[in-house]
């Protein structure tokens, strides 16, 4: 695994270099090796596509790499940004090298021969590099033909193909922002967006449907849906933002409150009671400490109903599941309820 990650890092360097004048020092053997490397990584992509653990590890490394790179310089290098990109890394490398004028003529000829060997090479078009390059060129021409002669830009933002494609991105517009960081600011802005005042109800003067333009209310929906779909960002949202902020957002959006409660329950269950010190402690260092847990529940219980009541009910039911003890030290939910008091 480690060797794979190293290879990934080194290939990313090669990919970055392939756009620079540095390639003037390359010879045909270097080019051949680089292409072989790319082919190998493409094979990795195919092989481990379904292997969640390895895929995640690779993706994480790629994204942290990219965050580093994007720190320097105004235009970051969109080389390998995620796991999907590995599937096309040979295409990207070939295109960059072919377009790099710094490559020596003889080397460029060798490259051309390798990339376009001509007909008679075994393998379907979807497999060979030349087939895929031709396919990409064909699709570009198709886009051009459609754009000039058939397709009309849509006034509806979320349906316009150009904007939609940019929004879909590798992981999406928002995910991209998250990856580039700074993350705390991102989370705060997200919370702020979710707390924007709701729109006044629109008069139903025209038929609603896919043709109606976007309203802020609908934007909330999209934003929330996106957030709920991203488990790690959601966890960070609930953990890193202050208790009061999360409580406010949860109060506004019931779906979020459900997830939040679920997370809190999970965090709570990871604590155990230290008999000697008489406190609840966590096993790992990342565990949410008692004080924080208490603080979060306190904010929630201070929220307006129905959230307040929901939280209470949840706490009661967890306490009951644990055995409905009244004595402290046996169930964290008992202790929390005791600490929170009967509530106002």
């Amino acid at each position, binding site marked *: 695994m480690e060797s794979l990650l190293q290879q990934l890092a080194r290939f990313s360097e090669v990919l970055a270099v392939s756009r620079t004048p540095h390639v003037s020092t390359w010879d045909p053997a270097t080019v051949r090796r680089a292409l072989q490397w790319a082919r190998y990584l493409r094979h990795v992509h195919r092989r481990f596509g379904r292997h969640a653990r390895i895929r995640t590890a690779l993706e994480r490394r790629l994204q942290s790499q990219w965050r580093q790179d994007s720190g320097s310089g105004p235009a970051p290098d969109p080389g390998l940004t995620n796991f999907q990109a590995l599937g096309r890394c040979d295409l990207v490398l070939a295109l960059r090298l072919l377009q790099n004028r710094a490559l020596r003529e003889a080397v460029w000829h060798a490259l051309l021969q390798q990339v376009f060997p001509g007909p008679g090479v075994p393998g379907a078009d979807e497999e060979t590099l030349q087939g895929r390059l031709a396919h*990409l060129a064909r*699709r570009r021409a198709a*886009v051009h033909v459609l754009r000039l002669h058939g397709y009309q830009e849509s006034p509806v933002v979320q349906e316009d193909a150009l904007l939609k494609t940019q929004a879909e991105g590798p992981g999406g517009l928002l995910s991209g922002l998250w990856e580039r960081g700074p993350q705390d600011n991102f989370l705060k802005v997200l919370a702020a967006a979710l707390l924007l005042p709701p729109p006044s109800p629109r008069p139903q003067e025209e038929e609603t449907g896919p043709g109606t333009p976007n309203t802020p209310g609908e934007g909330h929906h999209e934003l929330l849906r996106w957030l709920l779909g991203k488990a790690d960002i959601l966890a960070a949202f609930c953990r890193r933002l202050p208790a009061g902020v999360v409580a406010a957002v949860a109060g506004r959006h019931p779906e979020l409150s459900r997830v939040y409660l679920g997370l809190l329950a999970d965090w709570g269950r990871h604590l155990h009671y230290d008999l000697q010190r008489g406190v609840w402690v966590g096993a790992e260092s990342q565990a949410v400490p008692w004080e924080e847990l208490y603080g979060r529940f306190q904010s929630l219980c201070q929220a307006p109903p129905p959230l307040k009541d929901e939280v209470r009910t949840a706490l009661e039911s967890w306490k009951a599941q644990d055995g409905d003890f009244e004595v402290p030290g046996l169930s964290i939910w008992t202790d929390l309820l005791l600490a929170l008091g009967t509530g106002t």
Partner: protein
Amino acid sequence: MGLALKDLLRAHCLPQRLAGHCGGASPFPFPEMAQDSVGLSSDYQFWMQKVSTWDQASTVETQQDTCLHLPRFQEFLRQMYEALKEMDSNTVIERFPTIGQLLAKTCRNPFILAYDESQKILIWCLCCLINKEPQNSGDSKLNSWTRGLLCHVLSAFRFDIREVGLFTQGLGYAPADYYPGLLKNMVLSLVSELRENHLNGFNTQRRMTPERVRALSRVCVPLITLPDFEPLVEALLTCHGCEPQEVLWPEFFDAVSEAFLLKKISLPTSAVVCLWLRHLPSLEKAMLHLFEKLISSERNFLRIERFVRDSSLPEAACHPAIFRIVDETFRYALLETDGAPEILATIQVFTRCFLEALEKENKQLKFALRTYFPYASPSLVTALLQHPKDIPQGLWHQSLQHISEMLREIVEDQTHGSYGGPSDCWFAFIHFGGWADVAAEQLLRSEADPPEAVLWLLAFSYSPRDGSQQRAQTMEEVKAVLGRLLKLLRSPGFSARDVQAAAGQSREEAPRPLECGPLIRRLLLNFLLWAPGAHAIAQEVITLMAPTREITHEITGFLDQTLYRWDHLCTTAPASRKLASELLTELRGQV
């Protein structure tokens, strides 16, 4: 189409003059351009002029003309590449001094680049221009120019929107990811616009005007074989607006039909039905394509079934209009070939596949049988529709009787009633060939006197146009032969000569090949398959029966059909089956 079909059938001399299959190349070779260099040079001039006229294909006329010539131009590019790759860069420039111009203009035409493999072949041609050992600055300049053009082909047609470019870069979105995604979204957007058109007619705000739909069908022509475009092709075919005239560009239909027949695009049945209903030549081409395949391969029921199923015709024929056209084409082919067994076999296979498809159809609107077979009475069709395998074997004679009586009534009724005459009801009858085969078999397998109805049915199926006297004579002849064959069965042993005699040749004459009509041959063959003592002499009898290739061909056809039929009826008759297989293999080896 009749003319094309007639030529096709005549070219293969289906009626009785050719046995076996035509090996080798198809009779209609693709119109290839001259391979020699003189031909290439003149083609070059032609295409040079064309490409200059087309330029970037920005007007309707240039687009139309480009799309019309795309397949031939690609073929030309291929031939150019084959010629260029044998030369080095200097020779290329000597031979074709303006080739740079030609290739450059080609690169500017997005319709050419969007078609099939043209962009790939173009790149290969450009690679041939590269001078591996540049001697002077001129060579280097040419290389540099070629390099630029190559890069243009590979990364042409950037969205020249600066913010978009920077934005996507910032998100780590490489063109290799971006363009496929963009294409997908554009296609999706167009498809939903078309569907809205279809569902809401005049009432949508974003209705696509007919001109726009037409323009869209025009620009799609080069792109039909691109898998991303399948949803759009499907939508264009199935979504009608409210116009009474056809809105789509005719060449669009031609291109889709061609791509579909060559299996370069896969379409759902609903889209194929729309294609064939909206554009009759496509259906005609599909049928011609089927006939071509059938003719150029050995007659073999399994193969026929595969071709028929492959063609999507059975499913599409659930729509009565399509069924009628297909049926009439079959009838025409039968007439032209005087009832060739290959056509008969195809009709039978097609009908069976069609009935299967009809049963699977879940539509609320089911058409009456009358719509499919308007030339036959519903009661006749219903009787014929019953498959022997759905009826217990003991009751087969009843069905045969019933069918025979109905047919006889129609044939002998001088007033012809409300339905067609003898030829129509014969045509209906042969759709369901199983019954004629069952009749022949039953006659040989039962010891009783042959029922007249069954004799009549057999005589009718082989010679529908006979007058009643002729038919009566045939029936007598068959009866006599049957009687003699059954006597042989009861005797302790018999030889090939005995069988020959039973078929109607006198013993005293010197042994010579057996001459008898196809009906008697059928009876003899059934006898050989079913009579317990006949297996030993079967080969000999067949040798006597089959002096010509035609008859051998007929016999192999019969054996193949019988095995196929037994498989479908789940007939268990291991000895007969074994014999039939052996005979078939033997005969096929001889041809």
